[in-house]
């Protein structure tokens, strides 16, 4: 049998990142390095209150990042999470502040609204087969106006700590005497563990990965792809609703017309954390770590005196680097994909 074609393995195992213990470890080290850098450069940075600030301002981005990880793994994207979270907060807040609803009801409304928009997104992508970028771009624009309409254009101040409804802020920030505890971080860790379990150990998580890996093959294996897409986007929507609660709890007021740009930070965090934009790859833990790169930059750059526009440029550069790494890593995994 002369002339038989010699065959080499489809992809090679030995990449630099692998040898360093995986992307999660690398990104974690980057987080530590950034933190150390800011501590060294700015003496005011190394305080407990700074860590509190970093954590506080991270909750809403972390939540939407965890949520958007799921559509990203299917090879799609959810652009509606930024303006969405503001919209849900406005709707819930309007009911609480101006209609007298109890705060817990307002919180539930936030999550429900998020789930509904998520359902719409899932329907557009899964059943109507719209490209996810387009579908969620449309819902992004819709939520941008929707929140403003529901709150009749007002900015909404959710009840402050100390007032009757203000208890919800303690979910994230618990003050015992002089000690300030970032309770929110605990919830984030729990949610990360929960979503990680769902992604890696439940059927729906498995199918979300499968669709991102090879949509056709998944369909041919008899799996209801519509249902899978809807699930992914509803998860994203629910987390946008949770992020709405977090945002309202940390910041004084919520104003309509804001929120555009949050989604890019959330998606950027997920990509830095190892989620591939082409689908099939990603971990919730990775997303959590990746988001912290962005959060530390956001909080730390002002500390070293950089004016706002430079902050944006640097964050943009970090994102480009993350995307480039993602693309180069992708060349291997593409071999089987049709």
């Amino acid at each position, binding site marked *: 049998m002369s002339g038989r074609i010699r065959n080499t393995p489809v992809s090679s195992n030995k990449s630099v990142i692998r040898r360093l213990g995986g992307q999660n470890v690398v990104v974690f080290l980057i987080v530590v390095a950034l933190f150390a850098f800011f501590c060294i450069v700015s003496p*005011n*940075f190394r*305080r407990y*209150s*700074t860590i*509190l*600030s970093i954590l*506080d*301002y991270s909750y809403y981005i972390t939540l939407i990042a965890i949520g958007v990880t799921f559509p990203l793994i299917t090879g799609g994207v959810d652009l509606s999470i930024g303006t969405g979270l503001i919209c849900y907060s406005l709707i819930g807040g309007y009911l609480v502040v101006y209609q007298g609803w109890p705060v817990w009801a307002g919180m539930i409304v936030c999550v429900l609204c998020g789930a509904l928009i998520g359902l719409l997104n899932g329907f557009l992508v899964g059943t109507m087969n719209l490209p996810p970028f387009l579908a969620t771009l449309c819902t992004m*624009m*819709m939520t*941008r*106006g929707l929140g*403003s*309409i529901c709150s*009749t*254009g*007002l*900015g909404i*101040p959710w009840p*402050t700590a100390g007032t009757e409804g203000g208890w919800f802020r303690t979910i994230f*920030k618990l003050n015992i005497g002089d000690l*300030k505890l970032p309770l929110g971080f605990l919830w984030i860790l729990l949610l990360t563990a929960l979503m990680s379990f769902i992604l890696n150990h439940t059927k729906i998580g498995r199918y979300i990965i499968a669709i991102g890996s090879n949509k056709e093959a998944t369909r041919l294996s008899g799996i209801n792809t519509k249902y899978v897409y809807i699930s992914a986007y509803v998860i994203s929507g629910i987390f946008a609703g949770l992020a709405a609660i977090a*945002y309202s709890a*940390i*910041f*004084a*007021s919520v*104003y*309509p*017309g*804001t929120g555009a*740009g949050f989604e890019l930070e959330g998606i950027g965090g997920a990509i830095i954390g190892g989620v591939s934009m082409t689908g099939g790859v990603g971990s919730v833990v990775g997303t959590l770590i990746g988001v912290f790169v962005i959060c530390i930059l*956001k*909080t730390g750059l*002002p*500390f070293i*005196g950089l*004016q*706002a*526009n430079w*902050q*944006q440029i640097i964050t943009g550069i970090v994102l480009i680097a993350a995307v480039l790494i993602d693309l180069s890593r992708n060349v291997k995994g593409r071999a089987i994909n049709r």
Partner: protein
Amino acid sequence: MSKKLLAIIFCIVLITSVLAGCEGTKSGQTAAGDTSKPAETSSGTKTDAEKPLNFIIIVKSYQSTYWLAAVKGAEEQAKARGVNCTFNGPNSESDIADQVQMFNDAINSKPDGIGIAACDASAVLDSLQAAKEAGIPVICFDSGVPDAPPGTVLATASTDNYKAGVTAAQGMWKAIENRVKGATGKVRIGVVNQDAVSESITNRGLGFIDEMTTLCKGAGKSVAVVGNDFYVNKAKEKGDEASADVIIEVRVPSQTTTELCATEASAILNQSDTIGIFGSNQVAAEGVLTANQNLGVLGSTDDKIIAVGFDAGSIIKAAVKDGTMYGAVTQSPLKMGQVTVDLLISAAKGEPVSDVDTGGAWYNKDNMDDPSIAPNLYD
């Protein structure tokens, strides 16, 4: 279908729609449609036999309740005087392009007058000229347009923002004067401005910076202004950072949002030599308060950082009441709305009009319930 035929059809459709749009008064909807608050109309009883006057009033945004108070004032006055007013405004104060679009749409609907609070003083110049050529009188409120072409803006009803900044500095000085005089090392005073483009914010910031500089120098201390280039360059005196006793640090976030203002404020509040911080509008002041949540450094006593805010809103009011915020400067948004309508009516009738200073007042926990101050402290 050949390209030429398509082009002709397209032109016909365009021309028809332009003609259709020119007739009658539009109710203030923008072409973009979905990004702004839907317009409200209020009409009053007819007091004269002619058709009531129609005005369009464009606010800077619906971001803070300040603007709602202005709208409320205008509405009440319109009702009282029997004219129609339509209101419009972009979603946020950084949506400059949206506001310009609304302004142009307003011009096209040919009202009897337009009132506008410009998000960006230079972005509306062309539209102002167009309004003049269309014979529509324009009154500015809250923020003026200093470089407006002659004859375009007939009058401005606003707080003298520069004076308001001065008032804020004077208010803060009462609490920090001794600390500045007795300081052995450098001290820092922070200023958080939500932008560097609108007339109101820039004037307040500069008013504060210049007055604080004068007060410190009067106490025998040298001053340097650092941070955002715009404010540094426009300040009366830049000073030298290395040798100055008092450093005024100015920070501007990349977008006019609370969380970005909070991050900038954090950076200032975290410095050990900061003794005072000024937030020049509601968003910035709320940002300062948010940043304080974890630090707890604001207060009214000598060991705390003195925070001075601007405008009102429930968050700021609560902070002033309990002393976290030493004090704030309030504008008179209600009065500003009323005055704007009055000016518009006069201008539409061809009477001469001139600028009105609606005034800004200092308030703290001691005087915030006074009858002269309280009505302006909207929620």
